[in-house]
């Protein structure tokens, strides 16, 4: 039985939008997506699922909520998409409210269940189809819709203006120079080897991460650049709100900027969903099988630098540390071994989580969930109990989270479940532990 407190949550983006809908529009929109935007994949999934329930145990929200059958992955499809198909789009406002809660809050599209379904049915894809329908109906949690609006207007997630962008980079360059003389943040350097791209929240609220990366690039002697204008943001909340048109625009601009700068590859910061958007969902919407230039996630890049000796660790961190495998770079890119290589290089006392690698539990914050904002936070926390237990069992003081959503999500978990530890990006630990060149150096 669905948690009654969760069903009572009011979100203007959901409820006020539903109040404006007519039955005709609902029916037409649902049927349009089911006939024109989906095809063989969805049909095969709908027909192949034999309702066996073997996916249930894969889902952290199902496990965390004492195996409540309504939170099993298959139940989430049953209560949304199956009904829409069965009723041929003739569903009411109450149904849509429920569908929005399930699609935007209870499922993070982490794809863990796809590894537990004997047929490999992609439940995440089906939930994303529900989100797409809801988006076309204007039924999207308000906070999430705001980030999508920001993408549509400013081409970044956090309403960062052009002057703020440049100003932040210059400010971070100065900060980095205090730590390591001669550090630069080169803008629009055509033909550089690397374009470094980040997500909107970095200049907005976590600007020091940019300085960290500038220091790492400086130590490694990298030939890198950042774009001075739009296209610098690789995050993509439109992908999660179901606004695929905006998702496509964001991804296209990001890749166009990289092409204009004639870089050989794009290195991106520690974010999971941005990787998914840039490498997978975005290109698919644009009809590309892969991005035009290789994209390298920060974890992969750190691995490369450490392995080749371009950066060296001077002193390891001694306190116990664990690591969160972000879904979108582990299930989504198989970076778990490289991640452990990096973590082991930095830490003396690394304590792994169980289950791990592709079988890690999602933080229930990615997939656009945390972006749905305060109204839904408590509901999210209820789905996070298993993650909290997992972290507690490691006894670690720090949880490394090479993903922004994992970072914020696990911070919430630590606060809610009083775990008494803290979260950290890899770059924060790297700048504390790497061997810096002797003072001085040229700009």
């Amino acid at each position, binding site marked *: 039985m669905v948690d009654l407190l969760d069903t009572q949550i009011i979100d203007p983006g959901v409820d006020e939008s539903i109040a404006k809908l007519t039955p005709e529009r609902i029916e037409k929109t649902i049927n349009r997506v089911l006939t024109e935007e989906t095809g063989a*994949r969805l049909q095969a999934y709908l027909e192949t699922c034999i*309702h066996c329930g*073997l996916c249930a*145990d894969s889902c952290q929200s199902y496990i965390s909520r004492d195996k409540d059958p*309504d939170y099993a992955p298959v139940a989430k499809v049953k209560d949304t998409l199956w009904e829409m198909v069965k009723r041929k789009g003739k569903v009411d406002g109450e149904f849509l409210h429920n569908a929005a809660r399930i699609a935007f809050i209870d499922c993070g599209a982490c794809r863990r269940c796809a590894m537990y379904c004997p047929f*490999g*049915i992609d439940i995440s894809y089906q939930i994303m189809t529900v989100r797409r329908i809801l988006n076309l109906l204007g039924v999207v949690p308000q906070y999430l819709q705001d980030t999508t609006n920001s993408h549509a207007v400013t081409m970044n997630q956090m309403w960062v203006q052009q002057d703020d962008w440049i100003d932040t980079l210059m400010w971070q360059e100065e900060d980095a120079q205090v730590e390591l003389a001669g550090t630069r943040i080169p803008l629009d350097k055509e033909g550089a080897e690397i374009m470094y791209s980040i997500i909107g929240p970095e200049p907005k609220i976590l600007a020091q991460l940019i300085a960290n990366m500038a220091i790492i690039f400086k130590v490694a002697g990298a030939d890198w650049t950042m774009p001075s204008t739009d296209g610098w943001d690789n995050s993509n909340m439109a992908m999660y709100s179901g606004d695929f048109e905006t998702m496509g625009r964001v991804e296209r601009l990001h890749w166009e900027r990289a092409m204009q700068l004639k870089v050989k590859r794009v290195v991106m910061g520690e974010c999971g969903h941005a990787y998914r958007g840039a490498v997978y969902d975005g290109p698919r919407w644009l009809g590309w*099988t892969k991005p035009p230039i290789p994209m390298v996630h920060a974890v992969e890049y750190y691995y490369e630098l450490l392995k080749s000796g371009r950066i060296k660790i001077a002193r390891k961190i001694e306190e116990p540390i664990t690591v969160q495998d972000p879904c979108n770079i582990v299930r989504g890119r198989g970076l778990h071994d490289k991640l452990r290589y990096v973590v082991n290089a930095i830490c003396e006392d690394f304590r792994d989580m169980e289950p791990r690698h*592709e*079988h890690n539990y999602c933080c229930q914050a990615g997939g656009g969930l945390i972006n749905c904002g305060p109204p839904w936070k408590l509901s999210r926390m209820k789905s996070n109990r298993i993650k909290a237990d997992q972290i507690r069992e490691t006894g670690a003081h720090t949880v490394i989270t090479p993903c922004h959503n994992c970072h914020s999500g696990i911070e919430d978990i630590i606060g809610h479940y009083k775990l008494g530890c803290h979260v950290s990006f890899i770059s924060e630990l790297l700048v504390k532990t790497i061997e810096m060149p002797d003072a001085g150096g040229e700009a």
Partner: protein
Amino acid sequence: MYEFIRGPLVWIAFIGFFGGLAYRFITMARLAKKERVVLPTFDAKYGLRSLLHWVVPFAGVNMRKRPFYTLLSYAFHICVLVTPLLLMGHAVLWQESWGIRWWSLPEGVADMMTLVVIFACVFFIIRRLVRPEVRNVSFLSDFLLALLVMAPFVSGFIAHQQWLPYKPMIIIHGLSGALWLLLIPWTRLVHMMWFPFTRAYMGSEFGAVRHSKDW
């Protein structure tokens, strides 16, 4: 009636079964072509790698987590496919009608395999009723499908043992068997055809695109 079942119905069932599957396959392939990235995503190496891990018992994590269910499920699927094909009674019919001879199972083995199918179907039905996460997603059609799969095996077994009058039982056996074949392309039983594709697609996405495993 018996003559009808012995003659034209067999034709109807086989033509309906193969025709239905062919029709579904062709229309699905056309539909798949319209989705720009579905067909180009299929990757032989990673698709087969995933398929292999989900065809070999206990190769996947979820299968290892529930050993009884895995064993029963494999036993059921092998028996449900092999028994009708290699049953001596069926082989005799093939030979009488078309002169085709092939190897058939010893009677005792076929009986055991039939009982495995029946037991598994009863288990699946009870599981649907007992396990909350399965009951929650079970519809009348799920129970009917399990009964439909079971029906030719139960009636065939009873007829063979001659526990009840032979002729009526064999008529029920023929009718339910034909219905079963005819419905496969149009119900969730079609998973027998889509399974290799859904699995290979997921394997291709996980392997080729996402560099990870899906088992």
